[in-house]
């Protein structure tokens, strides 16, 4: 029977199957961070259980950690306890951990791929919804709850009901200045934040195949914002080239065996998808959000929509509430919206290519007066690489702040937060009310738009400079 890529990977991981029960799926890699794991380790202790495969598990500190003064103790006492708890748990259970100050520390979804731990055909889980990032390598990657974290720690498996399959086809060539962030924002605006509910999305088409590995990760990262269980892209030469030579990539004969398997990982030509969505590449443009969920977006050249034009009642009510919260008037051109903060970073757009593309725009320019720009590398390695290339000098010369790696202003759990009423152009993934700090207002953008916006002080593309 013709099958999709996701179905193939699924079938390759079924440990136990019985009718009336969810499939028991083997997990190849379990990523851990400080926020969703403490209670899972507690559960193990209470039941007297061990971690079945510490060698398939890795921990890093990211959500709560500060991005300045990382050589000093964490100031917030509760954050400190959470980070210390992770360190103790890792030690007690024999799990590898990359702590603040370690060269491999960083956002969990940046660290896995960078080490070469995320590979095609694998199942990857983490107690974090943006685990979908890892699907960019052609595997199944799910976010899970804390009970499931405990389950995976104890058994290295997860009982799971099989999702439905969706194909998103992006054929053609992207216009200049349009990035993978714009593809995913446009998709979510089209299908809605619930459009992917119950599905695994496979991104296909010539425009997807033309993307770099890092750009693919940006798309898969935000699959969850469309409500999807996971997102993935079939592996190809781009994937193999990215992996070759990385710390944990297969070597020698293993590499050849791996490549032979990886090349089988694609959907059959006649595979059935429960839903198909076409997004022609040449119809796309730089995209930004105006509202308080990632589906409330328009082209940067567009205007703030009028809720009265929205037919669906729930969507109309939500748009009305969003405009009040965002303090925006219907009909305002997006490019007239002034920001006071620009955040470049997160597991969506905190990788080296993101920093490079923003630096190119900022080179020789200045961040607009009254605008504060935070540049936060996704990992310590990304930071080092950027410094080796002199990117930090460009950011600093432009007047931006150059920080240590972490989740930072993506969510208000660490000291980097918006104040009430502040407006931010952010390369992160969620524009929920209060996400970047109580009362803060978020516009989701690509790194290129973030850089141009920093220079002009209003939402802008590099073409506007």
């Amino acid at each position, binding site marked *: 029977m013709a099958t999709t890529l996701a179905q193939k990977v699924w079938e390759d991981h079924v*440990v*136990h199957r019985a009718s*009336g*029960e*969810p499939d*028991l799926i*083997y997990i*190849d*890699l379990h990523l851990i961070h400080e*926020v*969703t794991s*403490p*209670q899972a380790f*507690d*559960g193990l202790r209470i039941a007297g*259980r061990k971690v*079945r495969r*510490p*060698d*398939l*598990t890795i921990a890093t500190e990211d959500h*709560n950690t500060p991005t300045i003064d990382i050589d000093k103790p964490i100031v917030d006492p*509760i*954050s400190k*306890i*959470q980070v210390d*708890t992770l360190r103790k748990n890792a030690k007690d259970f*024999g799990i*590898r951990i990359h702590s603040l100050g370690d060269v491999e520390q960083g956002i969990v979804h940046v660290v896995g791929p960078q080490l*070469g*731990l995320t*590979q095609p055909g*694998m199942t990857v889980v983490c*107690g974090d*919804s943006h685990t979908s990032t890892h699907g960019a390598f052609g595997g199944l990657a799910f*976010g*899970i*709850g*804390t*009970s*499931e974290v405990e*389950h995976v720690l*104890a*058994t*290295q*498996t997860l*009982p799971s009901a099989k999702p439905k399959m969706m194909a998103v086809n992006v054929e053609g060539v992207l216009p200049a200045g349009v990035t993978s962030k714009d593809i995913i924002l446009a998709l979510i605006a089209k299908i809605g934040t619930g459009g992917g*509910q*119950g599905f695994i999305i496979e991104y296909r088409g010539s425009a997807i195949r033309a993307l770099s590995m890092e750009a693919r990760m940006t798309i898969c990262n935000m699959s969850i914002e469309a409500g999807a269980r996971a997102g993935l892209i079939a592996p190809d030469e781009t994937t193999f080239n990215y992996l070759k030579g990385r710390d*944990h990539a*297969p070597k020698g004969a*293993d*590499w050849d*065996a*791996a490549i032979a*398997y990886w090349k089988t990982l694609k959907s059959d030509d006649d595979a059935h998808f429960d839903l198909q969505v076409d997004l022609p590449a040449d119809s796309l443009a730089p995209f930004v959000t105006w509202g308080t969920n990632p589906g409330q977006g328009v082209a940067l050249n567009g205007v703030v929509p009028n809720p009265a034009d929205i037919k669906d009642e729930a969507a109309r009510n939500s748009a009305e509430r969003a405009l009040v919260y965002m303090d925006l008037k219907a009909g305002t051109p997006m490019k007239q919206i002034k920001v006071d903060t620009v955040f470049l970073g997160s597991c969506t757009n905190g990788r080296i290519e993101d920093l490079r593309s923003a630096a190119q725009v900022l080179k020789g320019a200045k961040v607009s007066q009254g605008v504060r720009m935070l540049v936060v590398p996704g990992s310590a390695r990304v930071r080092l690489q950027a410094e080796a290339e002199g990117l930090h000098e460009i950011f600093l010369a432009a007047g931006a702040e150059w920080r240590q790696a972490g989740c930072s202003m993506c969510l*208000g*759990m660490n000291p980097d937060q918006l104040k009430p009423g502040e407006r931010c152009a952010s390369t992160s993934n969620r524009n*929920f009310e*209060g996400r970047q700090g109580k009362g803060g207002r978020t516009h989701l953008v690509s790194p290129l738009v973030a850089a141009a916006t920093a220079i002009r002080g209003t939402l802008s593309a590099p073409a506007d400079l």
Partner: protein
Amino acid sequence: MEKFTIHTGTAVPLRRSNVDTDQIIPAEYLKRVTRSGFEDGLFVAWRKDPQFVLNQPQYKAASILVAGADFGTGSSREHAVWALQNYGFSAVLSSRFADIFRGNSLKSGLLTVILPEGEIEAIWEQVEKNPATVISVDLVARQVRYEEKILPFEIDDYTRWRLMEGLDEIGLTLQHSAEVADFERKRATFKPVTLTN
């Protein structure tokens, strides 16, 4: 996990829909490292209002929450389930739950029961009229009962059995340990490991 067969208690009418996980328990409470003690964060913004239903003395002893549609939307934080349990709830009745919240609740032994919207409305009215109304949530018979009413509800056999036996999923999976070991023996050797001695 404790066995869940029949739970009998009184109920709180929460006449709100779209209660998201941020409202059930805000992000600042997620920094805790325990699984208990989250009751103080439950609906914390609303509880500042003395009129809020949980603050009314007639509902103090209630152990069943009767909520509006789309309960538990938003993030995957399981802390939302723990907060409800820590506060003393054993069951939540609603006409629709968010997927992840429902999954989390059934893993932690908080029974989430889906009833038609009209029946939720009827329970609200009954409980508001007489807060001492005793309600039985019967997982064995798949029924909610109060006064003369018998309301059937659906739950899949596997989950029902697991809750009735009080089996945590980990315990169940561990019964398949031999199969897991078999699978591991056949796993490709090129797959990565995180520990390199």
